[in-house]
């Protein structure tokens, strides 16, 4: 593997769910790359396919949902082709998921310590229970939980929201993964506690080269924490590029509308513009641009298939009028 080769490369990913209304492609032709030590922000409104994309990468799509097309290359190996056992081993160890709702992700009947110890033992990362316990203490300490040796015996409900989030990240990191998918890990948290959790993820990225996919509704979080951002809409990537550039000069009308809909603390009286209309029904989409019913720049040509195309060295946009977006 060369240095330039990404840790994760996804190409043409299409994941579908059979529903009563027909087949629903929750992500449809998604391409993405993520290098070690990199943080990729993933934004887009509810239902745009952010979670499904990364659950597909992690192998967590449950039947009848299935990956219908595409490849998922992790360290150069296509996960979709790998035998199931090898795939499971790789996914268990090298990739981890930290989710939004930490209380439901933790088992309420087991102490925090037991849950971390079990994870460590399950991945064969410690020889004995005692060694696993020592490691659990260290992990909790590292995620900033004070007197971690005592707190190990606490049940999830005895932790505050912020501590539960951090405990969950400790569990996710127990196997020393190379990729952390953080799916809205902090939305339920207060700003000050949330900043602490994000600081922790940042530190692991810098110090251990952890690759991070940060899925969130909060563009501010992405602006501060991720060098690159990927914007999803109705199951597709519509824009991608360096976060600072995308925010300063979006190249897709959806990204621009999203930015215009956010109130700003610096300029609180700036009018905010809602995006008119609704996201299309994913069981009823055609080949044309999926944003066209809400797009101020839409023209007849937008009914044709629109590809994600490069604009300069590191920007991508799925819009035929990308150059005109200002």
């Amino acid at each position, binding site marked *: 593997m060369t240095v330039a080769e990404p840790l994760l490369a996804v190409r043409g990913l299409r994941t579908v769910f059979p529903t009563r209304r027909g087949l629903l492609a929750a992500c449809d032709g998604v391409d993405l790359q993520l290098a070690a030590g990199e943080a990729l922000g993933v934004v887009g*409104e*509810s239902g745009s396919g952010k979670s499904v994309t990364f659950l597909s990468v992690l192998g967590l799509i449950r039947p009848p949902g299935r990956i219908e097309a595409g490849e998922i290359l992790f360290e150069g190996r296509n996960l979709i082709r790998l035998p199931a056992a090898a795939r499971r081993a790789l996914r268990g160890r090298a990739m981890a998921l930290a989710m939004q709702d930490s209380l439901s992700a933790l088992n309420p009947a087991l102490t925090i310590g037991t849950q971390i110890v079990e994870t460590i033992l399950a991945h064969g990362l410690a020889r004995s229970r005692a060694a696993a316990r020592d490691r659990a203490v260290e992990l909790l300490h590292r995620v900033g939980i004070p007197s971690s040796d005592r707190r190990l015996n606490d049940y999830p409900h005895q932790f*505050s*929201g*912020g*501590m539960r989030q951090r405990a969950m990240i400790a569990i996710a990191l127990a196997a020393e993964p190379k990729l952390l998918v953080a799916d809205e890990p902090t939305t339920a*948290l*207060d*700003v*000050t*506690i*949330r*900043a*602490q959790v*994000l*600081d922790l993820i940042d530190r692991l990225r810098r110090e251990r080269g952890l690759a991070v996919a940060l899925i969130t*509704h*909060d*563009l*501010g*979080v992405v*602006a*501060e*924490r991720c*060098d690159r951002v990927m914007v999803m809409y109705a199951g597709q990537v519509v824009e991608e590029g360096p*976060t*600072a550039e995308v*925010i*300063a000069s979006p190249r897709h009308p959806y990204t621009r*509308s*999203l*930015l215009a*809909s*956010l*109130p*700003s*603390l*610096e300029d*609180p*009286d700036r*009018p*905010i*513009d*809602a*995006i008119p209309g*609704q996201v299309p029904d994913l069981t009823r989409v055609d080949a044309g641009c999926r944003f066209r019913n809400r797009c101020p720049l839409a023209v007849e040509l937008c009914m044709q298939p629109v590809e994600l195309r490069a604009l300069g060295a590191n920007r991508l946009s799925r819009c035929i009028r990308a150059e005109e977006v200002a």
Partner: protein
Amino acid sequence: MSALVEAVGLAKSYALRRSISQRLARRPAPALRAVAGVDLMVMRGVTLGLIGESGCGKSTLGRLLLRLHKPSAGSIRFDGIDITHAPERALRPLRPRMQIIFQDPYSSLNPRRTVREILGLPLALHAGLQGAEAEARMLAMLDRVGLARAHLDRYPHQFSGGQRQRIGIARALILRPEFVVCDEPVSALDVSVQAQVLSLLRELRAEMGLTLLFISHDIAVVAHLAHRIAVMYLGRIVEEGPREAVTRRPAHPYTRALLAAVPRLDRPGTPAPRHLGGELPSPLTPPPGCPFHPRCPEAGPRCRREVPALVAVPKSDAHRAACHLLAGGVA
């Protein structure tokens, strides 16, 4: 300008159940002080934003002001009328004048009632309106919040989150109230839908001359809507003042920490400033002295003993904060 809502020394404690050991030791039930002595005025026509971390007592304070809870201490006046201990019978004529919009558009609407029933109930109960007259009012209100006649006979689950929040707003405003507590009305919504609901609230506020208490943990959202901002910490107001003063010249160390922790769009890539450490202490065992002292970077010995009073911030108009450091004091 006159005060529409005024609270003095307002407090609310919840009695918790005793644990077995407490019962055996015959100790009294522990009390959780959710609101711990709040002095606050909401002037007519003004939107007061209320921010603070989860569990600091924002919702409890909002409900106290509407007398949906009974206070444990202090007093509440609505339009000059003392409602602190008013029985439900005495509150009834005031109810149409004070309303609430809830955070969760999913659980705050009865799933077995149609929109017609949801909106018709307050009209029948408080305005004595029924039949065609009531329907006309409902249709006018629905139209105003961007819903149509066709929506009248649908159930909540047949609407999107944003539409449900519009129903919640219509329900709160159909009696043409003067004071509305908005308890995180957009927190559960997508940003683009959030923008629609915020714009709607702004318009309706102007049209109906509403006085609002707008609760949110999103400071940018609060700043967009509020004229004044109050910051709460562990059941107390630690700072209150004009929006500009509080967001640009915060006087309390907690407000400064809160503002520093807000992720900003306009400074991408800049390393985040040093964040506040520590956890929000439990309201069951509040720290002595200044409630913020265990986390305050500027705390001194005095902060561990004395509770700072909410006092005028020097050289800042109509701006109060509770910190020993104000006016060159020592911590």
